[in-house]
């Protein structure tokens, strides 16, 4: 039985904007196992990134975590003081962001930026910190690390910068690495390399990984468990194999049908409509206006998140009646 390292319980994060209250995360729960890669998947605006920010306690204003628990090794992070959280950030949980072009400070050399983070978390001399930074660059497979230490972000390619960002996230030797769409802004060939690197690092360093993405291909490649988010709620969560084999939520099935396949000839179907306005989300099941299997009850009642065998969870009124296509297999 895998050990649980992080548990998110009924998390609510709202943004109090002038236009109204944006319910970005509205009751998200999931469990992250130690040394295991987990995927958070959903469209833009489904609450993936805000969930990550809530875990770290860095939700930007005017956002606020209203309710829920984020339990790391028995402690609720949401009850901790800022100063305590600061010691956890980077040390227990590392983060890699989406855009390598802006996630490094343009004014300082790679070496300075890495040793800066190292010095936050460890009491080391200059030389020790330098050696550790070089070690990190080697870890993320950067050639000529000594020369790179003196270079500035603009002198590196996008893929290289993202490797540096990964090295920086690993500087505090975290047990959990959150990768927030780490490959979205990279070229396709570089994407594959960076994903490969993250995968190797995860197993090499025995870390837990939270992979945030909208790409089902990355989920299949990288993760063992998936949480599918829709409009700030969990639609379905299960092992990656089970999700691809037999999706239980109509949204998951629709997401899978939107992925192109090389080995099967079939038409790609897009999901009709857009992600709903989160200021006034649809009543009942939030997916119902776009759902092909919608009935009256969907618009009236919020479907509970039901637990199935194998640690599987689904939030749909009709999951028992539906036999959704095994989209990728059929």
């Amino acid at each position, binding site marked *: 039985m895998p050990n649980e390292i992080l548990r998110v319980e009924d998390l609510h994060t709202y943004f109090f904007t002038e236009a109204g209250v944006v319910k970005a995360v509205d009751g998200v729960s999931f469990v992250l196992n130690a040394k295991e890669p987990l995927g958070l998947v959903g469209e833009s605006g489904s609450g993936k990134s805000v969930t990550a920010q809530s875990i*770290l306690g*860095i939700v*930007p*204003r*005017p956002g606020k975590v209203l309710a829920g628990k984020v339990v790391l090794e028995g402690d609720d992070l949401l009850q901790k003081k800022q100063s305590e959280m*600061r*010691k*956890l*950030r*980077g*040390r227990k949980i*590392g*983060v890699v*962001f*989406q*855009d390598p072009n*802006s*996630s*490094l*400070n*343009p*004014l*300082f*050399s790679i070496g300075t930026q890495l040793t*800066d*983070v190292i010095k*936050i*978390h460890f009491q080391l001399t200059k030389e020790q910190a330098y050696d550790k930074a070089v070690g990190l660059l080697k870890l993320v497979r950067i050639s000529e690390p000594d020369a790179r230490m003196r270079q*500035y972000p*603009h002198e590196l390619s996008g893929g290289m910068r993202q490797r540096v*960002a990964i090295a*920086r*996230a690993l*500087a*505090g030797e975290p047990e959990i690495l959150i990768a927030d769409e780490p490959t979205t802004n990279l070229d396709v060939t570089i994407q594959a390399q960076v994903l490969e690197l993250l995968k190797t690092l995860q197993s090499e360093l025995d870390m837990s990984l939270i992979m945030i993405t909208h790409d089902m291909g990355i989920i299949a490649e990288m993760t063992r468990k998936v949480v599918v988010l829709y409009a700030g709620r969990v639609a379905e969560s299960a092992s990656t194999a089970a999700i691809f084999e037999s999706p239980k939520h109509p949204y998951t099935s629709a997401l899978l049908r939107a992925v192109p396949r090389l080995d099967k000839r079939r038409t790609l179907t897009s999901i009709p409509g857009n992600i709903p306005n989160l200021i006034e989300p649809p009543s009942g099941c939030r997916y119902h206006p776009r759902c092909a299997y919608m009935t009256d009850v969907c618009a009236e009642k919020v479907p509970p998140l039901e637990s199935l065998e194998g640690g599987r969870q689904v939030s749909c009124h009709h999951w028992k009646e539906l036999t959704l296509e095994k989209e990728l297999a059929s």
Partner: protein
Amino acid sequence: MFGYLFAPYPARSFACLYQGCTNLPPFVNWAHPLGTENSGIDVYSEILHGAPNDLYVGIVATAISVVIGIVVGALAGFRKGASGALLLGITQMFLVLPVLVIILLFARIFILAVASGLGLTLIMLILAFFGWPTIALVARGEILRIRELEFVQASKALGASNSRILFRHIVPNMLSPIIVLASLLVAGNILTEVVISFLGFGDPNTSTWGLLLEEGFGYIRTEWWVSLFPGLAVVFCVLGFNLLGDGLSDALNPRLRE
């Protein structure tokens, strides 16, 4: 700046009057390379004596303005809501005031102070007091821009403290436009000082380029050199500060460093 130590004659000295060297044109007598004016003041000496005074007004006033501007701009940028909006409002109010008129008014009100030799400091303080709004606006804009950048988020997410984020990430990245602006402000302050002196609102006992310019202006048809050379000094000085600002902002940008 320290040229005045080597000036052949003391400041506002009428020594040449007794030597009979008044109204000398430039480049004729090498004891007075830039000529003398009609009461015998040596133009070359006077320009050298004016330099530290003009630079004092320009640089110190700018330094004060930059400090006020950054503090106000930072507060306005970080405080959302009423206090931020109020600061922004005050800044914009200062921006639309007719500064020159107010300075002239102040100079007249404090005429006693002007006469007792504090005139230059007074003008400097007034310039400082009215110079900060542009700096504050730019500082606020930069802070709003930079704090949304991913590397600020990233350093916060990796455990950096607020002061580290501020001094390591935000301040260095906002410095470049502020340095350029400050160098323009130095030039602008020197020009304003010249204008004040030229209009006769300055301190008649302190050597400045503006004062000399004004003294020569009455005789410009016969003694053009008395006004021309301090005018040239102003032009070169202002140009120099503009170039300095450009150079500094390039030097601080690693993209342009090689």
